[in-house]
């Protein structure tokens, strides 16, 4: 593992995939609650 090219950070990608899924689920839940509570104009 002398330099960057030889080191493939697969674990990093795996963790970030989990993070992005969590992000979309949690953010999406809050967003859907917003839609359900209706308009303001």
């Amino acid at each position, binding site marked *: *593992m002398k330099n960057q090219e030889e080191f493939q950070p697969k*674990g990093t990608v795996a963790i970030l995939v989990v993070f992005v899924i969590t992000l979309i689920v949690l953010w999406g839940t809050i967003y859907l609650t917003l839609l359900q509570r209706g308009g303001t104009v």
Partner: protein
Amino acid sequence: MTAQTYSLSPKEKSFVSWHLLVAMVALALGTLFGPLQAFEHAGLNLYPFLQPLIKSYYQGLTLHGVLNALVWTTFFITGFLTFNVIYGLKRPLRYPTLNQVGFWLMIVGLVMAAIPILLNKASVLYTFYPPMKAHWAYYVGLTLVVVGSWVEGYGFYFTYAAWRKENPGERTPFIAFASVLTMVLWQIATLGVAVEMLTMLIPWSLGLIETVDPQLARTYFWFTGHPLVYFWLLPAYISWYAMLPKQVGGKMFSDSLARLAFWLFLLLSVPLGFHHQYVDPGVPAGWKFVHAVLTFSVFFPSLLTAFTVIASLEYGARKNGGTGLFRWVLALPWRDPSVAAQLLAGLLFFFGGIGGLANAAYNVNLELHNTTFVPGHFHLTVATGVTLTFMGVSYWLVPYLTGKKLWKPDLARWQAWLWFIGMIIFSNAMHVLGILGAPRRTPLGDAPYVPAEWNSRLLQVGIGGGILFISAILYFAVMIGTAFSKVKVEKEVEVPVAEALQPVSQTPAWLDRWAPWVYAALALIVIAYGPQLYEQIRNISLTSPGFRVW
């Protein structure tokens, strides 16, 4: 590498230590009130027992916010940055007296602000929204703390300029670069609150003017209020980028991208303050949307940071024999309390980011504004991502500065885990309550409109707060134990500064040039804030006299 041979002089060590000492005393006092708030939510109000010393929930909440969010952070950060500048540049401060003057200004300011708070003459919380009017000493004191930090910053700039002269053509060492940048960001950011203080709050509280414009004051305040959180966060990022990888036996995955992320923070963290004013009546929706887009864009350097930092950790873990897609995480040195604290801080910071992205999302803020979601969020960011990281840093920095061995590292490790667990319970409940509509900054145990369905979550707030309190006690026990320990370190503690995978000399020169970035940052501020500031100042309505409502 000469990295191991350079050391701070005893005088410099003591100067940095004083910063940390003041920071920790502030945290110790401020943290006392955290569980009082949390217990109150759970139905156990201990404030009556503090009479007549502490007169109300809000005096306690003001102490909690000011001491933890403003004093602990500012003093720890100026101390840590001072250390980074000296150690990173491997040269003493150019004008140490200047830095000392700055530090003493901060102390004078702190004492000035503390007296009215303790006398219940400034229970206006750390956002001090007018027309609530505190004692003038509160405003002048807080201003002096900021001015003092500026003066310390000027000390950094002179030191850095001297280094540039002595080392032409060399790349600035990362920790020094990032520390100077953090200070530049802070000095640009605090212009807003400086104007608020000097043109409104100070003359008003002294009786020189009768009335203020609360809407314009909010705009000034939030010019500073959001980049303020980057002033807290970037020192933690410095540790995650450049120190933590060394502590886990790895290297910085990319020096260039680390610098790019810091430049993007300088560029983007100021011109987005309206995202704290989404539901303000006095700011047009169109400008709020512009700031919403800019707010999303400042999320980008944090996503970049996530990749670079995790990859740096993975590099270290795999060198230590870590395998698998996820299992390598276990190969990180979790037994080192400094590492454990910072990894757990980073893990919860992920969730802080998610909540932040919800707060920041324009109309989604209608759901969350001034609910417990907001303190739930910033207890994951500033109170964990930042604070638990600083605690982790202190687990090596204090032994380095004092020459004493860390007292009971096992307790320190417990401290980190308890903070993590307590914060999950506390913060999760706060987020859920916020979505249900529970207001922040409210003694909910006392509020007549609280529905029964909130009760179980309110209880969790109390339980989480209790666990956090135990963790805080452990932290101060370890710090005091270390300071008074008779066990010296065998040889000077090694400062963890990671090498980069690619030699730093290959970092592009444009990532080490200041003028274009600073000008671009200022230009972006003028574009994003100029028209509204012009409009709001032109239409200023000085119609609000002051109120004392506590």
